């Protein structure tokens, strides 16, 4: 039975620079020996780990190894690309397209704001605090909607950039 390829990609909570890939492929194809992960940013630039000289990351030992964690992100990003399942001749036999946004840096800051509010009830009276809190929430949701509804990597990255600005200038906005 040929492979039915599938995978999930999630940022690692507490370590948002890392993306955790899980291979959920079913079926059997003894010719497949490894995978390659190709990711690019909105401008088409390859996104790989520091030190990687290729435009992809190797994910070896198929099917025994079904998980890999890559340290890829210095900030939240929207990424497109694909995962290839390759045979011994490095020919891609199966391909899974990827279009995702990774907003965990922003969400982790969002959770810090909740904790700050929980520990400082006076913040409840600050309209400015909540105005920018809502702006952060909207940016996170816009980044998600741009991918899931519109498949628009540029809009998603723009929303993540707005969240990044709020966080980078937190002393002014919060």
């Amino acid at each position, binding site marked *: 039975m040929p492979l039915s390829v599938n995978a999930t990609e999630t940022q690692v909570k507490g370590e948002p620079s890392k993306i955790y890939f899980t291979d959920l492929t079913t079926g059997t194809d003894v010719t497949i020996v490894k995978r390659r992960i190709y990711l690019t940013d909105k401008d088409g630039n390859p996104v790989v780990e520091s030190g990687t000289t290729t435009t992809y990351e190797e994910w070896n030992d198929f099917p025994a190894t079904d998980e890999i964690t890559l340290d890829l992100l210095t900030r939240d990003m929207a990424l497109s690309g694909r995962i290839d399942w390759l045979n011994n001749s490095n020919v891609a036999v199966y391909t899974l397209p990827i279009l995702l946004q990774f907003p965990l840096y922003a*969400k982790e800051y969002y*959770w810090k704001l*909740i904790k700050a509010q929980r520990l400082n009830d006076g913040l409840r*009276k600050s*309209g400015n605090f*909540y105005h920018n809190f809502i702006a952060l929430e909207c940016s996170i949701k816009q980044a998600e909607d741009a991918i899931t509804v519109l498949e628009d990597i540029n809009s998603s990255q723009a929303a993540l950039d707005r969240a990044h600005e709020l966080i980078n200038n937190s002393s002014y906005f919060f």
Partner: protein
Amino acid sequence: MTVQQIINIANASSIYASNELSSGKIHSGSVNENDPYIIHLVRQGVEWLYDIDPTFEDLVPDSNYLLSLCKHSNKAEANITGGGSPTPVTSPTAPEHYDFVVGATATATAPIKDGDTSVILTRFRGYKLFVVRGGIPQSEINDGITACYSWNKETTEFLIINAPASTGEPWLIYPSL
């Protein structure tokens, strides 16, 4: 009370707080003008956190804090444990809420059974209700199609409108002053 139940209550509470504001009750001091979106923002954060890591240590205090915020709009919180609220609130005199799954027969802890369209809930006499059915906050507005409910706090008759209760449905019925 579970985190998911608190999220459900917060969903209803932010709507309720908005309604209170639009009806002018802000001036009576019952609702702060920031309450609807404060509840919304914290609920969203708790929901994200619950989805990603339901065991994370901040989840319990954040959830309790969310529940305490609901106090300002619906006084729906009770029996807060685990810390996390600036002013943890308990309602020792409020009747116990119902949290159950509909079955073939009604019981003391699950008063609604399969096929019911009307039940008497004497426990909540004099209270308003918050009702969550199948994870969805319920309205008393009857459009003739959508499932909703009617509650008479004097006679304690609770009507299930447009869609009788059915086996397997989770219900949460919470009293509110």
